């Protein structure tokens, strides 16, 4: 990431170095270098199948990278083993990956709420089972998070009774309750009816005002421009172009980026 003004500077909170991921013979990520500082908001854009989801999922280890490193707050994740020929392989212990996921939250396209739990129970779940908070305290915290996303009056409602936009806001509250240092969004509005997109985007923007560190995969380039401090254009598993939102959207340096942005009909600055 280049040195443009960001809300905060200093050591990166999340880095990837030469991050690779293959599924069998399919190389999806071909060496991604990423530098996320506290307070950065990074929009990841790119065509379908370019590896955007895979990149996010490797950063919180929903998928295990097949090469390269992820460094969270200066700490490399995984145990490196150097083979006789000098090559290095990294093995991951589930326990360590769980610890990472506590600190790097994720919001999914399909919400993935627990349908058998009320909204407040959904948000409490991580507090109680992962952070071992007492139930009463967890419930209070969950209620605060739900109020923050505008659902303070829906505590005891089940997800099945909520609109898609409301469900996604519950999912955001569920992630926020864990106090993540970084929050990942994978196309959070792609499965929503158009009239429900706005409320979710507003919620995400309000998190930006709080100075949250976020990575967001989106097709809504107009929103990406308003949201992001930095933009990454991913193509064929590599970072094809990166820069500030201003640079990438207003003045893309490479033809492919320019063509991609021009193709996105919804992008009007």
């Amino acid at each position: 990431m280049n040195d443009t003004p960001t809300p905060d500077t200093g050591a990166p909170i999340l880095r990837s170095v030469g991050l690779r991921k293959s599924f069998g013979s399919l190389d999806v990520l071909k060496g991604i270098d990423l530098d996320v500082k506290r307070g950065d908001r990074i929009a990841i854009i790119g065509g379908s199948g370019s590896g955007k989801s895979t990149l996010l999922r490797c950063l919180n280890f929903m998928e295990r990278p097949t090469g390269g490193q992820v460094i969270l707050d200066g700490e490399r994740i995984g145990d490196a083993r150097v083979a006789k020929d000098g090559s290095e392989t990294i093995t991951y212990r589930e326990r360590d990956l769980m610890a990472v996921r506590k600190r790097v939250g994720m919001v999914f396209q399909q919400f993935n709420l627990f349908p058998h739990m009320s909204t407040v129970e959904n948000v409490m779940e991580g507090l109680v089972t992962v952070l071992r908070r007492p139930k009463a305290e967890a419930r209070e915290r969950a209620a605060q998070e739900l109020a923050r996303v505008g659902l303070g009056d829906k505590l005891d409602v089940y997800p099945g009774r909520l609109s898609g936009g409301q469900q996604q806001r519950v999912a955001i509250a569920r992630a926020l309750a864990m106090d993540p240092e970084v929050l990942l969004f994978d196309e959070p509005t792609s499965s929503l009816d158009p009239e429900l997109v706005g409320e979710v985007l507003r919620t995400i923007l309000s998190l930006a005002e709080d100075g949250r560190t976020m990575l967001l995969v989106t097709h809504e380039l107009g929103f990406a421009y308003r949201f992001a401090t930095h933009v990454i254009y991913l193509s064929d598993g590599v970072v094809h172009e990166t820069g500030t939102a201003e640079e990438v959207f207003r003045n893309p340096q490479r033809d492919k980026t320019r063509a991609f942005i021009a193709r996105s009909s919804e992008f009007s600055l």
Partner: protein
Amino acid sequence: MGYQFDFSMVIKILPVLWRGVIVTVELTIACLAVGLILGFFVALLRVSPAAPLRFVGRAFVEIFRNIPALIQLIWFFYAFPIVIGAQLSPFVAAVLGISLNTAAFSAEIYRSGIQSIERGQWEGAMAIGMSRAATFRRVVLPQVFRRMLPAFTNRAVEVAKVTSLASVLSVHELMYQGRVLSSTFYRPLEILTTVGLVYLVMIYPMTWASAAMERRMRRRA
């Protein structure tokens, strides 16, 4: 048909039939409890990431659901004692035979339930730092029980019916009492008809409940 119906003695035999009903209910509950618990662990084998464990689970299921329950009962009463060197009571042999059969079928219900839970549920839970075990316990299983309740109720219906096989081991359940009474009174038509009706009264509510649950779930889906 010049047959003279005589249902008057049915009143007299009711206390005996009632004792049979109690034993049938006991058998059903015992077999269901053992079958559902054992079946759960067999299902865990079936979905295990370790191939040898999956094989053991699979073998259990195929053996105990493809050998007729009647043969299993008789085997446990007459053959199993030779293996262990001790006689089993007819009740215990019946419970063993029927439970293993029930476990095999229940395991398949659990397994299909577990596999029907979307991957997103695992991911939603793991993304907040939950372990696989915690996810299974807190997120997956509760949904499996809900989703599979009609199937489990159907299984309970089958178990209640299949307990009648225990009469061949002289377990004093409803069918056994019916057979003894009908040969004592020489009134098989009245007595066995009554026995059939008693089964119907016991079992139909469960069948109805299962169908009602299925209807309700389909409406909600």
